[in-house]
């Protein structure tokens, strides 16, 4: 289980209606079901992973979040979770807007491209960074829109959504991000976790 699942779970109220976008093999869905007794649905693009979710008794729709979120009416869910996939979409702006349309709140996690290892990697090697959370080569990565924690904070001002809570994951420890420590967290945070609202 990914370390951020516990953090995501802490951000969600009990018995809420939740949509997990890109729910993978349903690990987070199961975790939230057990811990928060949520009414949870998932969308997943991979047929194989959808099968895995069905085998776990989870309600999952095979689909592409970029096109298939539009089938949900406004405010269908209290929370919509998007784990580490924002950077893989053709149009992250539309995705964020869709998340906040179908959900009252969204939890978005991003692998931080501003992490010092990523920066050093590029600085000294002169090649596109490969790290634990970004294991692919530039030519086969699904991540076409990488951003940093700082970029995401800026993004919230540009496309106008509120960041209700922002957290950084550093060595499996979680800490708050605020204006005064943003530069630091942007350098050391492996993952940014944001609870956002319209």
């Amino acid at each position, binding site marked *: 289980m990914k370390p951020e699942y516990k953090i995501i779970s802490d951000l969600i109220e009990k018995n809420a209606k939740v949509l997990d976008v890109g729910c993978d093999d349903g690990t987070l869905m199961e975790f939230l079901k057990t811990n928060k007794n949520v009414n949870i649905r998932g969308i997943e693009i991979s047929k194989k992973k959808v099968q895995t979710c069905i085998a776990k008794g989870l309600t999952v729709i095979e689909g592409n979040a970029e096109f298939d979120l539009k*089938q949900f009416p406004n405010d269908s869910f209290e929370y919509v979770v998007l784990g580490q996939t924002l950077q893989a979409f053709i149009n992250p702006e539309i995705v964020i807007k869709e998340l906040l349309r179908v959900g009252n709140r969204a939890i978005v996690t991003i692998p931080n491209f501003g992490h010092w290892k990523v920066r050093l990697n590029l600085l000294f090697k002169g090649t596109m960074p490969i790290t634990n959370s970004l294991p692919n080569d530039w030519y086969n990565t699904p991540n076409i829109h990488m951003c940093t924690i700082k970029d995401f904070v800026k993004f919230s001002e540009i496309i106008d959504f509120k960041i209700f809570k922002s957290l950084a994951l550093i060595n499996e420890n979680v800490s708050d991000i605020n204006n005064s420590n943003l530069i630091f967290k942007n350098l050391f945070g492996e993952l940014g976790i944001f609870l956002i609202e319209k």
Partner: protein
Amino acid sequence: MDIKQNIKTLIVEKPLKLDCGQIINNFPLAYETYGSLNHEKDNAILVFHALTGDQFVTGINPVTKKDGWWSYAVGSGKSIDTDKYFVICANVIGGCMGSFGPSHENPKTKKNYGTDFPVITINDMVNAQINLLDFFGIKKLFSIVGGSMGGMQVLQFISNYPDKTKTAIPIACTSSHSAQNIAFNELGRQAIAADHNWSDGNYNSRNLVPDKGLAVARMAAHITYLSKKGLQEKFGRKLQERDDLKFGFDADFQIESYLRYQGSVFVDRFDANSYLYITRAMDYFDLVKQFNGNLSDAFKDTKAKFFIISFTSDWLYPTQENKDIVIALNAVGANVGFVEIESDKGHDSFLLNIPDFLKALKNFLDKSYAEKLS
């Protein structure tokens, strides 16, 4: 065709008002069951058959002596596990395996109904079958399942009886028959009508069988159940028991021989008038129109858990039409899962041994049953 033996039949006494306006009562509804109903009566699954299916879902069909049409999916230890669930399937009204249909005798004329039989709809089929629940004393089914026309019956059932099932699995179907679907059905009907033996539907009283027309109808339909890729891989341009083309019109190619065979075995087990009536029922099916253009309204009262399944190479009821059902369900916040199964076997995939499909079906049913849904 002596089919009266070995067929369980419920005589439905309650009057049923058909969509065409006619009222029928005391009509026979032939059915079969597999497995046993548990004490709580919460393990029943109603299976709906497709156009040319019947109530003999699995095991050896006592009439045709062949395997039941869904033997891959239904049986001991299979996806629809008869060790666990009580499976019920009825022959649709309009059919020819014992349920009230055009080959039944009209008491007024003492002849078969033929084309005097009322035009029936998917709605009528479902409304006839709901009587089975009372008959078995089942308050709520655990599931309703069906592919193709069976899937249409699943959708109609849930819209008519939103609280009569805990789960619903429409497979490879549509909420509204497309122009292409209607076109293919019309081709089949015209093939039957063009057979001189059909005699405007009165062939029984003249001891004739419009077998040529019915065979052509089946051949044309059969092509629509397969995919181009599947056909190419199975048959290609292979020749039938010959080394070279014969420069004639016998079946030179294996695909020709295969289709002729499919046509010839079909006429032994199916009634031409039933074929007309059931294809008509499919063509008339338009759940979207029934709910004034908003399919979601068909599902707004149900708490059932849905699982929609389509197949990649099904061009008769393509994935998008199945997805439209998912979209309509999501619009009313229904509990719906969806998967498109990879298969090059076309629409027929739901009847075949496609492991991914059978696994998904089994997992959904068994996990849902364990959840003890209310």
